[in-house]
């Protein structure tokens, strides 16, 4: 194999190198790639938004399906534009209040469900050392998150055990995830050496 003659591969390869140059230090190549990525991705985002929101969720329901309920979010959305005018900018608090209310309101039942599932999952299906350790781990970790009492005496000791579990979990999660990170790097190197330069078969 030889070096690629495909212009698109060249673009992709040069952009890849430009990003890697950041590891040495900030430089015009990285800056170029960074600004380009930001610009392209926002253009991409706007195109998607245009299609997914304006056409699919506003225009089609309003014009084709005569679903006039869409007018409410439409007005709320337009109220956001009040931020362009200083004396009316307070109106933009309405949509923000709506979104925050909806977000927090929706989160409450799902938090309940989550609590239930987790407690249920902790109940031992069988008695063995593993399950015992899990129960101790869950309880001590919870004790670490006690905020309204000082971590002294018995509570202090229990929360120390909790921190031990947390640290083991962090170490394990760290060791476990890095494999996927290296796979990504391998993928990029493969692209550069094989698809672009063609120095390996």
């Amino acid at each position, binding site marked *: 194999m030889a070096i690629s003659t495909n212009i698109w591969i060249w673009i992709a390869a040069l952009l890849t190198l430009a990003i890697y140059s950041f590891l040495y230090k*900030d430089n015009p190549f990285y800056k170029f790639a*960074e600004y380009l990525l930001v610009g392209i991705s926002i253009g991409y985002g706007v195109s998607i938004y245009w299609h997914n929101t304006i056409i699919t969720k506003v225009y089609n329901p309003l014009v084709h399906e005569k679903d006039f309920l869409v007018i409410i979010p439409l007005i709320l959305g337009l109220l956001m534009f009040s931020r362009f005018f200083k004396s009316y900018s307070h109106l933009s608090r309405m949509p923000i209040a709506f979104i925050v209310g909806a977000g927090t309101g929706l989160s409450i039942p799902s938090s309940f469900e989550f609590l239930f599932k987790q407690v249920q999952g902790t109940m031992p299906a069988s008695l063995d050392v593993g399950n015992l350790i899990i129960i101790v781990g869950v309880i001590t970790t919870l004790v670490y998150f006690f905020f309204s009492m000082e971590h002294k005496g018995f509570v202090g000791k229990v929360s120390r055990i909790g921190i031990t579990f947390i640290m083991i979990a962090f170490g394990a999660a760290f060791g476990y995830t890095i494999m996927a990170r290296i796979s990504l790097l391998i993928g990029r190197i493969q692209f550069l050496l094989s698809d672009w330069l063609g120095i390996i078969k």
Partner: protein
Amino acid sequence: MKKNLVLLLISLLFIMLNAFGQDRAAEPMLPDSNAITSETVYLGNILILSDIPNDGGGGIEIDWELNDSLNNYYITIVRREGRTKKIVASDLLASSKQVRDVNSDEDMSNVKDGTEYFYTAILSKYAVSQQILDYLVCDSIDLNTRTIADGYQVYLISDESGPVKAKASWFNPERLTVFVSAIIISFIFLLYLQFARNGKKLYIRKINGLDAVEEAVGRSTEMGKPIMYILGIGYVTDIPTIAGLTILGRVAKKVAEYKTKILVPSYDPVVMTTAQEVVKEAFTEAGRPDIYNKNDIMYITQDQFGYAAGVDGMMIREKPGAVFLQGLFFAESLILAETGHSIGAIQIAGTTETAQLPFFVAACDYTLIGEEMMAASVYLQKDPLMLGSIAAEDIMKVIIIIIIIIGFILGILGIGLHIEFFNKIFNLLIEIL
């Protein structure tokens, strides 16, 4: 004349032969004459219909139980309402034993509440042909026969089942346990808020890292460097992002007191707008609305790695003295934290993503773990009502611990306690009440 007639006949024959031949070629397989044995011919009434329980209406559940030998057959379901018929499902595997006739996003006018529906099943060895499907929904056809056939196979037809009506429920009993615990939890919260209102003294333990906020802001100011506050890649509908915004309020107030600059690069435009409100409010509270600059809270892009690239670049060029990473973070966590470290900033991070916490712990000076981050805004502004809510959270932790311990002990005793047991107790309690 005669000659013409003969020609016409020959050509007709040709066309017929041709058509026949094409037909043969297009047909993938021959009918299996042994497909249906005499004892399976009569299907009878095989469909069991019911309203789907605990839904918002507009849904019928259709169940069937068949002899094992028919499990590999295809089943087609036809719904009748008055004289109009509709194919509900076709080419389903008979072994799936169930199908739901429900409204979907594309077809909202499907099942109506309160209307009487009748259902019929059609069984076939091979996939049903379009011809038969058209035939089945034809108005004039009465599905009282037991079998029909097209050129390739025989179809078995069940007796018509019904009528059945769909209805909407006003309460979902499956969520009763959640409902009861929601009431209990709300009660605990309100109780503690009341305690707080009545002036009960409430305590909050030291949270590592939050005491450093003042120091971080102060040091940046001394060095003449701005503060950077990164809210991660969550939306305003995510609680961690909201928690991050509440902490931003407290941090921005300190920033205003020190008359420093705070940069907030955002991932989502709604988060950006909300962050602008938060910072403006904090500056006003600190009595410095004059130094608030809307343009310091800017939008980057809604692309995970585009955002990481943009924020990295901004960090390298603006060189903030303190970097806060509070919100929802995914793989970009370490990209941001390592760059922040390389410019020598004090970094205070916090997230609820357990997979990212180890990276923050490794790269940042202080890390708020999970709930610590949720409680941070309370810690930074020790308002009695807020402290009350924290105390209520702790009471719930105690309750959870007790439930786990009881479950464990009962488990040892061999009762085999599971959540169903609690469901039963809850149900019992409700009946008594």
